[in-house]
């Protein structure tokens, strides 16, 4: 378990292929068709962006970011069996945070969490701790008591090097950017479909590709230079929720990533570069030294490159969707459901 992701309950019971996810969700939607049709909600990623922002408010004074990441995974899991239209998302959020703070060993008192929640959403969160306690039962039960979550941060820290053999010698900026991309991954399905180390490697790859000095010498030149603002000095222990920032929500993010991704003649630059590296061919473009190291690492490791590509695409797609995000619209759609169905009672 804690030493071995492959035997963890996360891998055994909470890891899905994208097509499995589709069938789970369509079965759930069919089962709750009436209410879902009555109360249409935004893109699921918009909901998660919204919930993440609310979570940052809730945890302002009392949180560590691994706790926030665990909270979001709990929400992902719960939504697999409960459509948004059947729950009070504010209560779910509050409870998931309360539970995650305990599993991540930085517990908060239930009254403190309730107090914070009531301060932000007095109209939606019942003023009784027993409602959080009850929701906690439901949450634990749906997750079948499997509460320990593996996160990509650990892999990022292990791989950044250079102190360790095989470290990738990432700069602070690169680590910060990768960290931000990992934070964003919690807003996609990646926590349910990807092993944590795959997400970490995807984030590292993108982060290195982003840094202007590392850009592939040919192809990217056409892109505007875009300095990615990254998480400053990220650590798991960082208590500032501001460090749970991602890259999403900034103008032109998806264009930048797409630019990086498609910068070579082929549409599959990573795979090709990795393959090329294996075959030691001398095709263009010529990546920077650091990029070469990463490509070499990808080629040498047994990591599924297709998975890395697909993870990257999910991130790109998130950033695209993010551009049409409206907090107001999500908030209102949720309020309609909660009021209409009496879920705040």
């Amino acid at each position, binding site marked *: *378990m*804690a*030493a*071995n992701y492959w035997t*963890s*309950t996360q891998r*055994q*019971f*909470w*890891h*899905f292929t994208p097509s*499995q996810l589709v069938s*789970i969700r369509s*079965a*759930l939607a069919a*089962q709750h068709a009436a209410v879902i049709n009555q109360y249409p909600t935004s893109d699921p990623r918009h909901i998660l962006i919204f919930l993440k922002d609310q979570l940052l408010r809730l945890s302002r004074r009392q949180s*560590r970011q*691994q*706790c926030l990441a665990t909270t979001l995974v709990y929400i992902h899991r719960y939504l*697999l*069996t*409960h459509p948004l239209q*059947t*729950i009070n998302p504010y209560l779910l959020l509050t409870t998931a945070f*309360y*539970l995650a703070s*305990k*599993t*991540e*060993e*930085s*517990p908060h008192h*239930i009254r403190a969490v309730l107090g914070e929640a009531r301060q932000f959403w007095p109209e939606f969160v019942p003023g009784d*701790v*027993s*409602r*959080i*306690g*009850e*929701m*906690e*039962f*439901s949450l*634990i*039960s*749906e*997750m*079948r*008591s*499997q*509460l*320990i979550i593996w996160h990509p941060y*650990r892999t990022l820290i292990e791989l950044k090097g250079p102190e360790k053999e095989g470290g990738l010698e990432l700069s602070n900026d690169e680590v910060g950017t990768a960290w931000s991309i990992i934070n964003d991954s919690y807003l996609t399905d990646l926590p349910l479909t990807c092993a944590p180390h795959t997400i970490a490697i995807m984030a590292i790859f993108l982060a290195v590709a982003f840094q202007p000095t590392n850009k592939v010498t040919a192809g990217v030149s056409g892109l505007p230079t875009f300095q990615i603002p990254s998480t400053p000095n990220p650590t*798991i*222990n960082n208590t500032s929720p501001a460090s749970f920032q991602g890259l999403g929500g900034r103008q032109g993010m998806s264009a930048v990533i797409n630019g990086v991704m498609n910068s070579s003649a082929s549409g599959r630059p990573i795979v090709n570069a990795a393959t090329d590296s294996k075959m030691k061919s001398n095709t263009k473009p010529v990546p920077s030294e650091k990029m070469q190291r990463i490509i070499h690492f990808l080629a040498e490791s047994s990591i599924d490159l297709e998975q890395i590509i697909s993870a990257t695409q999910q991130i790109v797609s998130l950033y695209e969707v993010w551009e049409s995000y409206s907090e107001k619209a999500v908030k209102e759609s949720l309020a309609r459901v909660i009021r209409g169905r009496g879920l705040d009672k």
Partner: protein
Amino acid sequence: MSFSTSDPPSALGEPQSATGLNRSAFPPTAASSLKRSVQTAFDDSLDRKMAPTTYTSKVKVREKYQIVGFISSGTYGRVYKAVGKNKAGDATSPISANSAAREVFAIKKFKPDKEGETIQYTGLSQSAIREISLCSELTHPNLIHLVEIILEDKCIFMVFEYCEHDLLQIIHHHTQPTRHPIPAPMIKSILFQLLNGLLYLHRNWVLHRDLKPANIMVTSNGAVRIGDLGLARLFYKPLTSLFAGDKVVVTIWYRSPDLLLGSKHYTPAVDLWAVGCIFAELLSLRPIFKGEEAKMDSKKTVPFQRNQMTKIIEVLGIPTKEDWPGIVEMPEYGQLQSLAYSRTGGSGYNSSSSHNHNHNHNIGHSHSHGRGASTGLDTWYNNVLRSANYPPSSTTSSGTEPNPDTPGLLGYDLLSKLLTYDPTRRLAAEQALQHPYFQDPGSGKISVSGNCFEGLEESYPHRRVSSDDNGIGTGSLPGTKRSGLPDDSLVPCGKRRG
């Protein structure tokens, strides 16, 4: 939110639901004649009329299990003995797969807080969350086996395999009616299995933090199972220092010197100290360091456990900088110095033991006398072997065939390396398992039975299961919390009332 449908998608053959069970399909068992009180206590919250709730469990604990008695209690709640109601042939049952071995269960019921008369959801304790989450991930032959967890009617029921014995009970048995030692091969098997389970925990970044005889279970087949993960936690890059999370860990008699001296960032070595204490207790049938706990004051500051530290010093001597270079960094180093001063200054510390006269060297002294051939632990060990009538350890020093009937010199060597002051020098679980004590002297291979009762004529009494839940308080002595023995069940039921 009435969600009786839609099993979590990944069921993958996971034991899930027995909701189809019909209670009436099962004839009443002998257990149904059980005094009402145990069942009533178990049902405490179940039968209560409650406000309408939105959470309902998919699995009903009473539909699957029949409570047959009460085992023990603690601050967390109570432990009951139960039998499965499922028929052996029921393929949908999670317990049928191995029905012969798993028909009896121990159900740990976490008690909910009461506010007045009604039971409320008040949020699960950190301890319950730890036990739930860790037990769900961990599987090892030397770890208590979790069958399932049921969350029902504001209570958590953790269903475990039933273990007939525990080390506290076994040790106690060897003091009745007169003291007779636990056979040396049995101690060796217990210790090996205990270390093996501990190695698994540590490899998985789990600290147990409450190892003591009462928490070490033994099945009727002689398999050792580490139990009670209520204080256990992950220590991989902790978010907060371990100390900040729990000010006090490990029952006082089994608490390591590094903890006693206020270490903030302690390590798996704290568990190995406890293993050393348990090893000593298996040999002597008494806790080796039986100190008195200083209670936390009203300001919730953690007191220096002077008495416990003294008990350790009485056997091991005062730790020196040479023994333990990091000792000067310990928060309570000053307290230790004053303790050392009072002992060497002849200020009349009233020692109850007489065999420790050679341990009056002060902190900062280099190794003075008494550190060579015979340390205090050496003396302690030889005394124990002599009074227990184990063959004297010197017979094993010939280099020929060691006598399996004695823990011998190798046992002493292992013990002294577990009860080492410096946590960085204390043996790790993996090293301890490779100690020659466990090896066949001829082949050098590990030679320990996986059944600690192997070859034994002695049979151990079954766990006392009370049918009367009344009058068993939640108070407990160190080391006795988990088991009904000896402080609870030796007293006739009813006498303890009030």
